[in-house]
């Protein structure tokens, strides 16, 4: 990790770990078809609309900041996306999961059904394109359909959920899409007491991102040994 030289404007591009994996497959799944922009690392509280030097200097604390090089880990990049919204938007979309902590017991199931506040003028609703759900440690869930996206009924949902079952052996996260996500806790005991987990509780996290709004929320998961 290092800083980029910000004396000149350059673009430092790399393939992500996922990109290398898909490129190695050689099945055409690498094809780039869309882009998104993000403002990771920007702290907007540094923006000062009261700067006595005038409006040209409101963002001076942001504009000259040095930026870090790109990380190859795709889960650590593009966290906070820029979003296209109608002008005069006063409230940004906010994703809520309905719970602050997901508490489960071994082999039990839990369905996460997120809602988005301020989405297309609605106070609280489900996004048209659904949500992306990523659990940080798939080993904590049942082998078959332990993390299942549902609700959209589209080809994209089926394709993404099918592809997500293919892992490269080292990537323990799993991503699915849908309007809701059904989690089924593992019945296996071996992870209890290992690094990051207590003798009786497994800890992980689920990240939920609105596919239209880009808004995201993270919810901790606790699976209690029975």
């Amino acid at each position: 990790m290092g800083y980029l030289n910000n004396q000149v404007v350059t673009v430092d591009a790399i393939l992500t770990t996922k990109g290398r994996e898909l490129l190695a497959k050689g099945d055409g799944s690498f094809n780039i078809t869309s882009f998104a922009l993000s403002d990771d690392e920007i702290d907007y509280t540094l923006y000062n609309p009261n700067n006595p030097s005038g409006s040209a200097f409101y963002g001076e604390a942001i504009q000259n900041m040095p930026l870090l090089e790109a990380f190859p880990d795709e889960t650590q990049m593009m966290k906070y996306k820029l979003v296209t919204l109608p002008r005069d938007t006063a409230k940004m979309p906010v994703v809520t999961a309905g719970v602050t902590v997901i508490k489960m017991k071994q082999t039990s199931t839990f369905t996460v059904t997120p809602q988005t506040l301020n989405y297309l003028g609605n106070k609280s609703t489900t996004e048209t394109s659904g949500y992306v759900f990523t659990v940080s440690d798939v080993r904590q869930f049942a082998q078959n359909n332990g993390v299942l996206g549902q609700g959209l009924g589209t080809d994209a949902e089926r394709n993404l959920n099918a592809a997500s079952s293919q892992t490269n052996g080292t990537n323990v996260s799993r991503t699915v899409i849908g309007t809701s996500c059904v989690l089924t806790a593992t019945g296996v005991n071996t992870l209890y007491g290992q690094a990051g987990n207590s003798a009786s509780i497994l800890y992980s996290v689920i990240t939920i991102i609105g596919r239209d709004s880009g808004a995201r929320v993270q919810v901790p998961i606790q699976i209690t040994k029975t």
Partner: protein
Amino acid sequence: MADQRNQIATFAPLDQGDLLISTENVTSTVWLNNTPTLTSYFTSSVQVNSATGQFYYSIYFEEEATGSVQFAIAYCDADGSGSLLYNPNVDGLSPTRTNYGQYRNLILGDEESSFVFGNQSASYFYALPVERSGYKEELLPGAMTLALSGSDETLRLTDDSKLGGAAVFSEAGRIFNLVSGSAGAVYTDINSNGWTANSGSYGWFMPDIGTILLSGPALSGSFADGGIDLSVSRASNTQVNNPEKLYTVLNDGGSGAGSPDGWTLNSNEQLSSDFIFVRARSQNFNYSTNPSFISGSDGSVLYDTFINDPQVYITSIGLYNNNQELVAVAKLSRPLLKDFTKELLVRIKLDF
């Protein structure tokens, strides 16, 4: 992904005009640390005295021989001369014969064919395979100078790719003759083709397999005939260390008497690049999901001025596939301001 009717989106599609595939040739040096010319050559006594030393000598960049092999010297003989037989009861089969068969299979393919350097066949020669990590894809024709010194005289060799003739293709790709000269310029003092007087050319330059063959008869000739009096021994069932003899004239060509030049060698690589042109229109990407852009839990923007005139700063560009998986990412060196009065056009280059 939402369409424009929804007026909310975080992904923007790329069309065919935004993607461009291009290839370019990148030349560089072959030797370690971007050294253009190798003037000192080192062997490892451990390697020379090991089982592999019967077949080839590894030539190192530094005296310590710490693993930075640059190329190897293998002596090849159709009769198996110059090394001990595998079995004294089986005539002709020795490491030098194995080397010969290996290169004949690789380059000629046909066991009935023989090596013809220029207009003369040769039944013994040296093979100098260059370390692949150095030449990457292929050696660059027309840029080589190889100096060999013997008896206070220095012979400089290059390839004849700049003479304008068509390359000869073998089972191992292109073949150019090694001729007297430097950096592609041919010396015609002895022969109009740059060959020796009586032994044909000095060997072959094969860029596609990163290997050079040096003709034994050509190097064994007198300096007046274009050789360097290299005393290659073809004694049967005798370990005569012919690679050591070439190693000596190489070293003298790099740092010995006369006007040493060393070995200048360049590589060539075709680099394929994807160019992606990302365009953010004035109406798009003007709000942020960054937590610091929001004040409170109801999603209100941080400053009232952001309602009508949001100011966001782009730091990263993510490139996605059909499954919305992040396959590549580009990072700007400084934040770029984006608002409803600005458009952004960024060219991203991905090398493969």
